[in-house]
């Protein structure tokens, strides 16, 4: 227990939390846009895992930059199915979403088995290095904890204001909100509802795939079947908790990442006096309370999950 008072424990936990938040941020940022447009991508887990596999395999062959791009695109390819089936053909979003998750997990497991020698459990690459900010990252505790991050983590947090700008300060953002709130009225105003929803869904696929790529290339450097371990679903929870706000996604993802890291680190040091499980719940509770109090005003997109069928 004494270790809890040590600074190094918290440094490790916080930087671990940021690392673990990275895939969640990518996935939830894209999904925030899609949900604001009224499309519920329950297949987010599928986009992530297919991005995880693709990016790792391509990175081995062609390097990290091409790998990440391929990961993002592979997520978008799966999202294209979502666009076709739900946005265009009006299939049920929940059913197709679960189908895409199952498809993604199954397909990647299958490809992995086909391409991996018998007996091997995983595929490895070198994970991306850290970027440290000269001077600042050397500040005791704060610098070590917050400012010594992987590349992908910087990229993820860097995307937050971009997505915020896209959602709040562009005409596309207006259209996205309009088709998610009131597609009939948006159509009557002259907005191409199907196009906006399709683009938003593809964006969710791109960023979902990138989130998956972040796991294999930035977090663990390994692919194994079911590596995403439900993070796509966690991302969906984050979005609801922070009520479709880009900045909220950063905070909410970090809260979950922190809880993850704390749980992992506590397991190493905890004494017999406190059950591990009890300790693990504390950050969740704290995160929940903060988020519930902090993000009350935003509201759910009115047409989330409902397909748009023009009445003509």
């Amino acid at each position, binding site marked *: 227990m004494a270790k809890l008072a040590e600074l190094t424990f918290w440094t490790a936990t916080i930087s671990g939390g940021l690392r673990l938040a990275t895939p969640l941020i990518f996935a939830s940022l894209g999904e925030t846009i899609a949900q604001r447009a009224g499309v519920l991508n329950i297949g987010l887990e599928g986009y992530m895992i297919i991005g995880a596999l693709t990016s790792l395999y391509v990175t081995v062959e062609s390097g990290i930059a091409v790998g990440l791009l391929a990961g993002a695109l592979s997520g978008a390819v799966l999202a294209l199915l979502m666009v076709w089936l739900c946005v265009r053909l009006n299939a049920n979003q929940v059913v197709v979403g679960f189908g895409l998750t199952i498809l993604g997990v199954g397909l990647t497991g299958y490809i992995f088995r086909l391409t991996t020698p018998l007996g091997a459990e995983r595929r490895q690459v070198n994970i991306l290095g850290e970027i440290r900010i000269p001077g600042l990252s050397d500040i005791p505790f704060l610098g070590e904890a917050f400012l010594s991050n992987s590349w992908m983590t910087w990229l993820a947090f860097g995307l937050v204001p971009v997505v915020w700008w896209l959602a709040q300060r562009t005409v596309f953002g207006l259209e996205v909100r309009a088709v998610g709130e*009131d597609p009939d009225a948006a159509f009557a*105003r*002259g907005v191409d509802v199907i196009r906006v929803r399709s683009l938003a869904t593809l964006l969710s696929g791109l960023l979902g795939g990138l989130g998956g790529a972040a796991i294999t290339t930035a977090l663990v450097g390994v692919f194994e079947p079911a590596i995403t371990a439900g993070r796509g679903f966690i991302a969906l929870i984050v979005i609801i908790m922070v009520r479709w706000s880009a900045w909220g996604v950063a905070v909410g993802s970090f809260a979950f990442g922190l809880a993850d890291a704390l749980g992992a680190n506590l397991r190493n040091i905890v004494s017999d006096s406190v059950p591990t499980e009890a300790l693990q719940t504390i950050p969740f509770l704290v995160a929940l309370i903060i988020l519930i109090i902090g993000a009350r005003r935003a509201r759910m997109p009115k047409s989330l999950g409902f397909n748009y069928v023009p009445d003509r």
Partner: protein
Amino acid sequence: MSTDAGPEVAFEARGVSRSFGATRALDTVDFDLRSGEIHALVGENGAGKTTLAKITAGALRPDSGTLRLFGEPYDPRRRSDGSAAGVAHVRQQLSLVRGLTVAQNIELGRPRALGGTGWRPWPRAFNARAARAEVERLAAELDLAVPADELVDDLPLAVRQQAEILISLAWGARLLILDEPSSALGPLETDALVALCLRLRDEGTPIIYISHRLPELARLADRLTVLRQGKVVTAGRDVHDADLRRIAELMIGDITLLDVERPALAPGEVRLDADGLRVAAEHGPGLRDVSLRVRAGEIVGVVGVAGNGQDELAGVLTGQLRPDAGTVCVDETDVTGSPAAAVGAGVALLPEDRTAGLAADFSLAENLIARRVADPQFARLGVRLTKAVQRHARALAERFDVRPPEPALRAGSLSGGNQQKLMAAREMERDPAVLVAAGPTKGLDPHAGRAIRDRCFEAAGRGGAVVIISADLDEVAELAQRVVVLSGGRVTDRFGVEEMTSARLGAVMAGLAWDPAGEGLE
């Protein structure tokens, strides 16, 4: 106002027809709108006014016929083509997007020709300040109090309407179509609307104004065209010379008192006594001091154009809506504002919207016991007695001629007529003290309509007080002995069915006072 070249034509439709399935919504219609005029398009519900408006705006394509806009051939394929050409259609259900502000709505879907969005690879920043400035500038020019930064949801209907007109102008509208713009406005708001329309006309924007409120048109319109059942009955008549009473009569058409076999009904004691009902409604006029007394064995028809307080009246009479003032008594028991008390006193309702009266995904049997699920006949210790329920359902369905009388069938799978019979079976299983039926035979084939009509007669014959609320005059003519006209939330006329003439009804329904001598307007 005529020049040497004659008045310039802003919009012209020639021989326009459009069908929906077997229904001919428009039948070779000719229509023209001159620059600098307000042209009223009047007619009953379903006369084809909105279809013509949609065709003008590009939201619908005609099956045949040609259009010209400001002298040019005009063939819009979609709504955005219409708005790009300068035609703005302000619909009854306004089309501002909720969840956004007025300033955001002004940018949304702006036609590309006017600096709006088209496809481009990079997202374009939304200039909130410029949009706000544009709203504020136009609001000042038009003398409207439209706030730029409030969410559309928070604005009153009249302001939302003004905002939509304002946005149309910002988008470069050269022609406005206003579809029933005053139907949900109060008198002061209507005055403001009339003033705005006159001003826009004088500043050069011609307006097609759809309405059936003749007094308002007399203040506003230059010419009017009457549609009835998809055909032009009167084309481009000068409003100031027209006899509005005659126009009202034309709107309604002929009322035929069909030879319905009416059972001889002898009214008994007063069973339904509604007194001094007042309801303030968010949209529409609500109820303004309505009293209604119906005797045992009597059928009273409440007629009027939809949206003049009918829904509120049905709600209050059945206890589902608590009036702001007034009482509803059934057999001298006060049931005001209590659905449970109303049901207990024997009030039955056939709502106009069948989806509101039936659970479409439930079986016939479940729908038939919906009012009595806890009845010991159907449940013991909270467990449903399936056999008893099924037996009951089959017997009742057969008695009311629901086809097929299969207890396990989904209610939603029945035809409209059989759904109506199913609802009637549940509501009239025990002779109701009061039956409130809204448009009971609406949309039914003759056979099913006859069956429902007979049920209404039967309810009255067994001593029930029956109220038929309907916009369909034929329906009322067939069923009712007495007629009450509801207009603007008030009862404006009462008479026996034998005095029901199209001239009288047309006048009172359109809001004109009825004066048999025919001397001028109200």
